[in-house]
């Protein structure tokens, strides 16, 4: 795997732990909000979306595929955070730290899942005039 693909994955895998570290800052500190918010909104979902794909987002991905990946990242991130929070509340074990630990661990696992490489989908699949949905699918 090339470094330009490894580094973003490592950064994504570390994002939850950085967010956890940020919770040691004073309550509502701008840096804390600035680190935790993007993590909760995007990172678990993005890691899940990348795990669904065989490779990192390729350059020249059709616009609708980019839109779909972005939407899925956000909504999956929110859905995963919701399910983790509900699980902890139902178990009477809710704390922000526990919630972030679960999500950080999930993000790390999904971001670091080994992926088999495959050739990028050919643009030939994309029909004229349309965006097309290349870039997702099994290995």
């Amino acid at each position, binding site marked *: 795997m090339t470094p330009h693909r490894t580094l973003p994955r490592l950064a994504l895998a570390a994002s939850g732990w950085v*967010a956890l570290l940020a*919770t040691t*800052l*004073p*309550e*509502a*500190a701008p840096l*804390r*909000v600035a680190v*935790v*918010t993007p993590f*909760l909104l995007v990172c678990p979902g993005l890691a*899940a*979306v990348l*795990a*669904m794909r065989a490779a990192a987002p390729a350059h020249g991905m059709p*616009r*609708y*595929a980019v*839109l*779909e990946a*972005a*939407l*899925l990242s*956000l*909504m*999956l991130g*929110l*859905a*995963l*955070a*919701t*399910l*983790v*929070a*509900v699980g902890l*509340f*139902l178990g*009477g074990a*809710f*704390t*922000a730290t526990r*919630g*972030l630990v679960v999500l950080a661990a999930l993000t790390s696992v999904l971001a670091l899942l080994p992926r088999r490489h495959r050739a990028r*989908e050919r643009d030939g*699949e*994309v*029909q*004229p*005039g*349309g*965006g*097309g*949905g*290349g*870039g*997702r*699918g*099994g290995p």
Partner: protein
Amino acid sequence: MTGARDGPYEDTAAPPAPRDGWTHGTAPPASASTRAATVRHWSIRAVLPLSLGLWLFSLRSVPLDRMRDLGLLQVLPALFWLAAALLTLGFCLALSDRRTHGAWLTGYVLGLIALLHATPTLLYPTLRYSWAWKHLAVVDAMLRHGGEVPNADKFAVYNDWPGFFQLNALFLRATGLDSAVGYAAWTPAFANALLLAPLLLLYRSVTRDRRLVWGGVWIFYSCSWVGQDYFAPQTFAFLLFMTVTALLFRQLPTSALPRPDPRRRDGWPPALLAGVVVLVAAIVVSHPLTPLMLISALVALSLPRRNRRVVLPVLAAAVVLTALWDATVARSYISVHIQNLVQSLVQPDENVASGLAATGNAAPGQILLSAVDRGLSAVVVVLAVAAFVVRRWTRRTGLPLLAVAPLPLLAVNAYGGEMLFRAYLFALPAAAFLVAALLLPPTTRHHPVRTLAVYPLFLALLGGLVFGYYGKEAVNRFTPGEVAAARYVTDHAPPGSRIVTLTSDVPGLDRYYEQHRRIQLAHQSPKDTERLVRHPLAGVSAFLYGSTEEQPSYIVLSRAQDMNGYLTGALPADTSRHLRSAMANAPGFTLVYADENATVYRYVTPRPVGGTP
């Protein structure tokens, strides 16, 4: 598909010339054509910033205190409406020019969302909608109790579908923010902007005609008057619902988008299906109605045999997860309401009627507003049905099934009288596209004039929307004084106190809802309401019996409650004034908070004269 002229797969990347809709043999001189195209090209680029500038400028001094029957409609200046008309014109121009970059179309739609949904947030000093305040209170209570809130009474339903609240609780605890009130105010604008993504994906799965895709999007936002986009579980669940729907349409055999994996002929990639199940699970734990809407939509979409390999796995997941949740965590709510469910089944007509505002005693403006709401909804339905009849290719798309999917739910549950509105909301994404298919027929050649012909209709739809969406703002907007009055009560009322109001329109009064008993005088039996109107002091005192120093009662009267009484006709407009003057000199009542827009009385039952001290 019935051929290139009437097919969903219209190719907008057709050869570029001739561009401007002139027929062969009648083409104008090249210079005139070029000049017209250049004018249109620069108009599209100029109108967006101009209309947004006018919109922001128009908000600098809006006399909000003058809102009455028609809410914001009667106080927004002419410049605001000019900005809205210009924005619509610019969008139609952009739609009529196939060379318009997608970024401009996106800009116009985001501009419309900002104009419609950010205007109240920019104008109001406090959070809009009493329900949004209520949901803030639920988040706060769940954080204080570490989950389920005891003695929740009418708020118990939130214990059973806590997903949205607990997501916010996690966010607040992780960031250390004190309250969600800051970002809750911007929820309508952001939720609608987020909705753009699944709408685009859904429509793009049905056609490659860019005019249809963006026209459908514009029509959706121009007709979405129901106002279920604030800080609420249903907003979150609807976004998830639309995401699932968009992903599902992408996988259908009829999708106009290329297969994500060319080697997979049909069905889901397993990892993506797992992702969809996670989304469905988040819907199931967040809102009682949306899973039923999802199941209804999936059942409808599974009717054509060709869809089943895609739809049935998601349907099975939705049914199993919903049944599991309803049989365990939500069992208490389901078991109590099962009888109502059955009763509603027997009387389906009542459900349909319950969503139509009872306008008997309502303010004149509200009667007009109700008529416009109904008219707009009816227009959407009629045009969608016409599209189904005239544009035969739409029948293959699954959108007609999605549009009718909410209808069976109308027969099952009145859902607090709002089921008709909710059904409209869930049908609208599909219906809006059908309307676009009717108004913007795909052509092998481009007709800018024909596209521009929809401008008056787009304006009319927008005009209808603002009645429904802005018409009740006299109730939805709160002054800082009303917020302060509620804060005073929740800060001072000991546990066990009673809090008496006319209606529910007091912002923040539900804080510590599990510790207080709320009484809304407008929603008591007709006998009690009549007594309140005839003998205000006796009417309110009947609910205050047994108030003590340890557990007193608080009576909160405020501007938004008065407006609610006036607009809906639930109580005579002068009820509040009579009640105030009756309590002023009555024994046991103490004025503890007074503001231009809110008054709070504390009540303790006086000891009998000559009684033991």
